[in-house]
């Protein structure tokens, strides 16, 4: 196929059987969806000739042309709203927030217009809003945020936050194919981590939305987490396995909304202990909802209180000693596991 030949090298890695980073996986996923479905298009700031601040859409403009790779003014309300309008007309827009922090500028149009459209009778709005999220890169208060809880409380939205290259590709494809608006968060600390390189299936696949994944099996304690913390929790799990003989199961939520309650409940019924870990700040974080679901469905199975490890209740500070103190670290998770294991 002519179009395949034209593909730049860096979106042909999977075809060549090469291991890809999380960033490359998402890029390939978007590229493939754009090839598969001419309703799909991308829109955002500096995504055309420049290829995006993180080079996610590098080569897209040349291949797909300006009608499907739309550079916008600095207008998060403007282009997010425009994406909704295009979706009404049958398109499947994927918009990029240059940094996910700026999604806050479009908060009204996302929660009030887009999320409620189907309910109000204006039809479903199949669109994806994606962008680089998360801390640990010395980005300071406005280039490090985890925005999930600003939207988790909005019925009508779906929220995805992958932790592996395989999932990232399968989930971005599922998100683009979904008939409802999906917020797709990409942890920038994971984007190019060599440890996350993975050889992906050559054939088309999706990872269904709304389904958690067991990242690591275990019998003594369940950790529910997502995004960058999946890897920190897995590290902690190794430590306690080795040093304490405690077997920890790590559940990667992958999709936060809708929440895979069944997967959580099932694991808790097996291990009887629950720790929730999120990089996002503590008060009002997702841990509460998870605890509440367990209260409702599996409280009798608990041998210890569900506890949490999270970032401190503060903006994300810039200076390394501050940010490291602010963010949850592996040793915090280890400490919490030990506490719960001997509870």
């Amino acid at each position, binding site marked *: 196929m002519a179009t395949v030949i034209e593909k730049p090298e860096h979106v042909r890695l999977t075809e060549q059987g090469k291991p890809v980073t999380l960033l490359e996986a998402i890029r390939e996923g978007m590229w493939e969806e754009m090839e598969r479905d001419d309703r799909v*298009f991308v829109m955002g700031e500096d995504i055309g000739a420049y290829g995006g601040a993180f080079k996610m859409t590098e080569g897209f403009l040349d291949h797909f042309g300006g*009608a*499907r790779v*739309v550079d*916008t*003014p600095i*207008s*998060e*309300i*403007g*282009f*997010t*709203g*425009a*994406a*909704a*309008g*295009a*979706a*009404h*007309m*049958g*398109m499947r*827009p994927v918009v990029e927030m240059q940094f996910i922090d700026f999604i806050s500028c479009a908060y*009204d*149009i996302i929660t*009030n*217009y887009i999320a*409620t459209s*189907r*309910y*109000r*009778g*204006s*039809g*479903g709005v199949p669109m994806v809003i994606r962008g680089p999220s998360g801390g640990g890169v010395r980005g300071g208060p406005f280039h490090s945020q985890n925005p999930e809880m600003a939207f988790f409380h909005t*019925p*009508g939205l*779906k929220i995805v936050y992958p932790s592996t290259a395989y999932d990232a590709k399968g989930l971005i494809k599922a998100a683009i194919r*979904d*008939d*409802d608006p999906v917020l797709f968060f990409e942890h920038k600390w994971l984007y190019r981590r060599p440890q996350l390189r993975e050889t992906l299936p050559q054939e088309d696949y999706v990872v269904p939305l709304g389904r958690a994944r067991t990242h690591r099996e275990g019998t003594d304690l369940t950790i529910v987490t997502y995004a960058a913390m999946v890897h920190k929790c897995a590290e902690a799990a190794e430590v306690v396995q080795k040093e304490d003989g405690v077997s920890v199961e790590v559940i990667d939520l992958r999709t936060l909304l*809708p929440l895979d309650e069944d997967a959580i*409940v099932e694991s808790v019924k097996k291990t009887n202990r629950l720790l929730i870990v999120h990089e996002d700040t503590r008060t009002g974080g997702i841990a509460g909802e998870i605890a509440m679901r367990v*209260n*409702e*469905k*599996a*409280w*009798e*199975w608990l041998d210890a209180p569900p506890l949490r490890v999270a970032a401190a209740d503060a903006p994300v500070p810039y200076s390394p000693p501050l940010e490291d103190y602010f963010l949850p670290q592996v040793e915090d998770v280890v400490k919490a596991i030990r506490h719960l294991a001997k509870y």
Partner: protein
Amino acid sequence: MANKTRARSTATIPHGLSREQLLEMYGLVRLTRSLEERLEVLFKQSKVIGGLFRSLGQEGESVASAYALRRREDGTGDMLSPLIRNLGSMLTMGTRPVEVVRQYMAKGDSLARGKELNIHITDLDRGFIGQISPLGDLIPVMAGVALTFKQRGQDRVGMVYIGDGATSTGAFHEGVNFAAVQKLPLVVIVENNRWAYSTPSRLMTAAKSFADKAPGYGMAGEQVDGNDMLAVYGASRRAVDRARAGGGPTLIEVMTYRRKGHAQHDAQTYVDPAEIEHWAATNDPIDRYVKALMDNGWATADELTAIGTDIDRQLDEAVAEAEKSPMPAPEEALTDVYGDGPVNAPWTRHTPPDPTRA
């Protein structure tokens, strides 16, 4: 057949309109006013749930602007997004009065199935998209609609209304700028009715006119007498033609006046009654249109009366029909949140969850 009933025509009709079209526009503007009056009666009978917004004194611009669009019923025509005071635009696009009454009465078979209020209604086939309350949001949304027309190479046009007050919102700015930069086929109608709720123009903008905003976006702009239906039609038509020809968006400021309060509960204490009286007596869009039709020999009094009688009958039927409509079933509160099925019912509607038996 139309020829047979034609009145003696003394002036040529402007803008390439036919006499039939002039009469159709009359019917639409008359219907708008009469339907709102019916709704006001229903409101006073407590049959309208929630607020009621009147467009008294500005019905003309709604009808005349929307009339410039290519109206179809199969989703291939132009698209429009009406505000609460654009009932006339919606009727022009083909909304039936019974649909409007049902909506205001929060009926289960209304277009929004009781989930949304007043004329926040969408019908993609007939070409209208319901606004939501946060003002300005539909500007970017309609810019996106127009973007797809351009992406798809369709010669369709979008039209969106914005109140003088709502031009102050960030959404307006971002949406209009996006449309201008992308040269999208969008017509933005700024309805300058002198009031934003209780706020007069001088507290909304220091600009001499809202049309002055157009050069700041690099788009065409025009100010028009909003109570002269033919002038509004003309300006809208020019803008629609420009958009369809790839000339990009236009901002049209229509000068009109809101003669009623913001909504039914607003007693308009902040307005000099003489001012309202003056507009009613000298600058009512329907009066002026009727005068134009008669003075130019485009219609006879009898013809207009007949149209009015027919509308009143239609409205009797519409109200009767809407009154018979059922309220929505309570459980419908939980449907249509997502495309893939209803959300979980709140557990309190059932037995509370029992964590011992899950």
